[in-house]
């Protein structure tokens, strides 16, 4: 019994090894000219849902622009996807595996924490990275190799504070997740901006990662009776927070940042989600930008052609992170073209000078590597759908 | 044993051990003198092992005092919940609380074996004995860890080997303790206790589970180690042949109380003992 089991075990391992070798062997066999672009995104874990939407944007971009011509030679662009599992420890190995795949540039990641963690590795290996939706200032700060196509949390916090005050909310409560830099950071920026502009913060509550019972903190919020509740958090947390708040009879507007633009929140929170407000990078119904209109049309067709992607995307809606993923890919292509070669160092140089009109507006990077953006879209949930409310500009 | 050498080594004074409402040892007093072999006998559940556990520091007595070579090694009086529950005697006589942990008792020179053998089963015979030398090691943690106490370590090993030779286990020194035959395990447990260089050896049913031949060998073995190591021995035993053969004096307890004491002949003819052992005639 034991012996045969042991044998089985060894055989499985051997098989695994063989398969592993085989799969890596195939990649090197083709003699086609290839430029590899790393996709460093979470497909599982806390941010798996959003991460996948971002990947979809990149995959779609790859079908739109699958090759690039450099000096008369056509190079095929190959996406090398790794899953960082929304986990910093995994992120390091995942990033390392991208490095050993010899990618020229990296795209991602959804979730600032993993981007920060991997940033050092990209920097060390001198591989430029383009973040799509990581909004924490720490991602690009002090890292010459990290760029991003989205706006930053201080900006987003200010936008939401402006919006709250404009809509007549004089008192606000802030709920943040402990140990999460996105949530704590954004909450903090909102708090500062809101108080600076004359609002009053009446309650400040925190909850722990994986906590699912928010009744205690919500009871406190209810007692403070705010007009506006700002609760930036993950997609997983959102429906729970919304439903429990409504159950306790809280009627104030609940608002959050870009992460909440995900249909799973509407699916899970149902009618309670009505009236929720969030800021985001992009609106699919914004027809002012022709690039965006074209992207939305093409992306929807791409989704329809891939039923699996469609179901994981949660329907036909075009998420802002997909648009950002697309823009990140396109900025990379622009930079490769400008550099004229697939050398990472040259691409990094080129990125500092790239200007490109993307789906989410015009993109150029400042000295930190952040996209210069001055506008955010505010959306609300109405009739079970995300609806464009207004745009907010901050000077 | 002749009268002029009566130096008390171990003295139990009014020891009562009570668990909740159950009195396991009731007001037990006994003396063991230098060079004696004393047996503590009694029917199952009489409280013999409990008495051993009090002497070796496993339990703090509820009331009473234990003296070893004239020094108090354990003393206690009923306190807390026991103060109201206490069912023993001599309440209020003892006022100090002395309860050293078992390792300190061993360091003072009392070694013991256990009713159900407690060897370090996955370690070798040699290691089992060598461990007893650890408590007297002079080297501190770091010098031991960095093996700077080479000479001391070597001495510990030599002493252990010598001991194994004296108890006839040298040829088995690299054997895993658990693999030894039963009789050898008993012998090893005694050897391990001897390695702590005790003055007083407590044997808890050393012949349990042995056949007559093995018991006979054990008798000779106990006599021999007593002589070789200049020991005083207190033992619990059910094998009456062994007890009557080897003991200088015998204490008989039943239901925690002392019912008789004296030489083997005196005890054998004591009516109280006969009553307690009725039907357990051996």
């Amino acid at each position: 019994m034991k012996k045969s089991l042991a044998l089985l075990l060894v055989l499985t391992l051997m098989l695994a090894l063989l398969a592993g070798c085989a799969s890596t062997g195939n990649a090197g066999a083709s003699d086609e000219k290839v430029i590899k672009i790393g996709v460093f995104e979470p497909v599982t874990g806390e941010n798996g849902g959003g991460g996948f939407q971002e990947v979809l944007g990149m995959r779609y971009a790859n079908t739109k622009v699958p090759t690039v011509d450099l000096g008369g030679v056509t190079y095929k662009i190959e996406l090398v996807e790794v899953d960082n599992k929304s986990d910093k420890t995994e992120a390091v190995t995942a990033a390392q595996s991208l490095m050993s795949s010899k990618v020229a540039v990296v795209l991602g990641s959804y979730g600032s924490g993993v981007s920060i963690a991997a940033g050092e590795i990209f920097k060390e290996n001198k591989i430029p990275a383009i973040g799509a939706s990581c909004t924490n200032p720490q991602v690009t700060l002090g890292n010459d190799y990290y760029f991003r196509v989205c706006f930053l949390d201080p900006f987003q916090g200010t936008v939401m504070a402006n919006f709250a005050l404009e809509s007549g909310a004089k008192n606000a409560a802030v709920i943040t997740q402990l140990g999460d830099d996105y949530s704590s950071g954004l909450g903090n920026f909102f708090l500062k901006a809101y108080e600076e502009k004359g609002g009053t913060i009446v309650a400040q509550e925190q909850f722990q990662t994986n906590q699912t019972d928010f009744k205690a903190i919500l009871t406190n919020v209810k007692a403070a009776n705010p007009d506006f509740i700002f609760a930036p958090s993950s997609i997983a947390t959102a429906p729970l927070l919304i439903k429990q708040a409504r159950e306790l009879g809280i009627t104030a507007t609940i608002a959050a940042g870009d992460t909440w633009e995900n249909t799973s929140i509407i699916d899970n929170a149902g009618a309670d989600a009505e009236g929720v407000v969030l800021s985001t990078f992009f609106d699919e119904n914004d027809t002012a930008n022709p690039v965006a209109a074209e992207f939305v049309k093409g992306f929807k067709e791409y989704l329809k052609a891939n039923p699996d992607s469609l179901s994981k995307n949660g329907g036909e809606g075009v998420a802002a992170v997909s648009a950002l993923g697309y823009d990140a890919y396109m900025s990379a292509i622009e930079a490769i073209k400008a550099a004229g070669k697939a050398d990472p160092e040259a691409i990094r140089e080129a990125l500092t000078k790239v200007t490109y009109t993307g789906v989410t507006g015009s993109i150029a990077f400042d000295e930190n590597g952040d996209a210069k953006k001055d506008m955010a879209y505010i959306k609300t949930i109405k009739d079970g759908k995300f609806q464009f409310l207004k745009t907010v500009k901050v000077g | 044993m002749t009268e002029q050498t009566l130096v008390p080594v171990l003295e139990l004074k009014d020891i009562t051990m009570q668990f909740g409402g159950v009195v396991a040892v009731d007001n037990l007093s006994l003396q063991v003198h230098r060079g004696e072999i004393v047996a503590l006998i009694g029917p199952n559940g009489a409280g013999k092992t409990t008495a051993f556990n009090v002497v070796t520091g496993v339990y703090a007595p509820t009331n009473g005092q234990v003296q070893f070579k004239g020094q108090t090694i354990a003393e206690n009086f009923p306190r807390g919940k026991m103060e109201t529950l206490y069912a023993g005697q001599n309440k209020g006589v003892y006022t100090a609380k002395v309860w050293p942990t078992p390792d300190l008792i061993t360091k003072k020179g009392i070694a013991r074996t256990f009713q159900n053998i407690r060897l370090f089963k996955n370690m070798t015979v040699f290691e089992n004995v060598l461990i007893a030398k650890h408590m007297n090691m002079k080297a501190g943690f770091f010098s031991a860890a960095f093996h700077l106490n080479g000479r001391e370590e070597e001495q510990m090993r030599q002493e252990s080997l010598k001991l194994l030779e004296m108890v006839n286990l040298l040829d088995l020194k690299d054997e895993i303790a658990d693999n030894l035959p039963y009789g050898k395990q008993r012998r090893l447990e005694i050897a391990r206790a001897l390695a702590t260089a005790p003055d007083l050896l407590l044997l808890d049913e050393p012949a349990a589970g042995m056949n007559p031949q093995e018991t006979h060998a054990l008798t000779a073995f106990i006599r021999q180690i007593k002589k070789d190591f200049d020991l005083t021995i207190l033992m619990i035993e059910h094998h009456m042949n062994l007890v009557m053969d080897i003991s200088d004096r015998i204490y008989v307890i039943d239901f925690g109380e002392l019912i008789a004491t004296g030489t083997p002949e005196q005890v054998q003819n004591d009516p109280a003992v006969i009553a307690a052992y009725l039907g357990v005639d051996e």
Partner: protein
Amino acid sequence: MKLNNKKTYPMLSIAALVVLAVLLILLEINKNTFGMAVSILQKSAILAIVAVSMNLLNGFTGLFSLGQAGFMAIGAYVTAIFSIPTETIDSVYYTGGLAPWLKAMKVGLDVLPGFLQISLGILAGGLVAAVFAALIGIPVLRLKSDYLAIATLGFSEIIRAIISSPQMDKITNGSYGLKNIPGFALGLDFLPAGIGTLLVPFSVAGLCIGFMVLVIRSSYGRAFMAIREDGVAAEAMGINLLKHKEISFIISSFFTAVAGGLLAMFMRSIEARTFQITLTYDILLIVVIGGLGSITGSILSAFLVTAAKEWWLRFFDTPLVIGGVTIPLFRTGFRMVIFSLLLMLVVLFFRRGLMGNREFAWADLLSWPRNLSKKASSGPKTGKGGKKND
């Protein structure tokens, strides 16, 4: 550990070490080509330290502790605070800033070369963990095995909660984690550029494990094992239980924290969430597969499990297509299922793990082919079951 009379073949050991060193240096020089291997080796070396520390406690002293993640967190945070370059400290603590006294300490330490600052940080991390271990050990180590497990696990969660609490913002940067932690090669200015990525973790691991092996082989190590085998009997042999359990707990925690410090350097950025219970479980997996009570088993297992988990078996997570047919089982998460099944298999059928409680010896390796043929002819000799240490 048996006091066997096997020949030790010191020449072979030295040769093996030299070969290992040469291999490591070769890998380092070509680390652009072997990036993945280098990264796996770094992580394995770090986990090997934790695995051996856990084994010292669980396998040799018989104390079932599940507090590893907490002690690693302590080590990681202390090391990080010591080693983040002072000039970038404000950008790391961008919300609240670093506590003035810590900043003053960092400015003061800047007179030392970076390499020394980091070493000091790792040492300090170990010492802080050792102090914590000593303090909580006094009440907790009296507990029976399973209560000890839960209590240490609880302790590890407390540490994590404290680290991420807003009240600690000025020290641990609370929710935001720490970044800009220098990697292994940084600070070693006296070596050629880039050298150290492997040498540093391997030599630290060598020192740590070496020390623990020395302890285990000393009289104290025997006392630990005696406690594992039978606490009551050990006490009757004059061994002070609490003192020896404390020593074992402190050493184990010290080295766990040192490994935590190395992990911080490996990851370059840390947050409290890194040190969850699953981290402890991962290490337990390594120890159990390697064999409770075998140092070489733990080391071997640390390398095997890490490499398999992070590298070789990664393809379990990606869809496998053979001849145009997609094999259904292969998708994200399958790898971890395989690993948990492997653990259960070891626990249920190979309770002794890879090495049981034996250690690697050249003599065994050299006589292996002979033994193998002997075994084949005489049929398998079943050893005793798992160690009895209840």
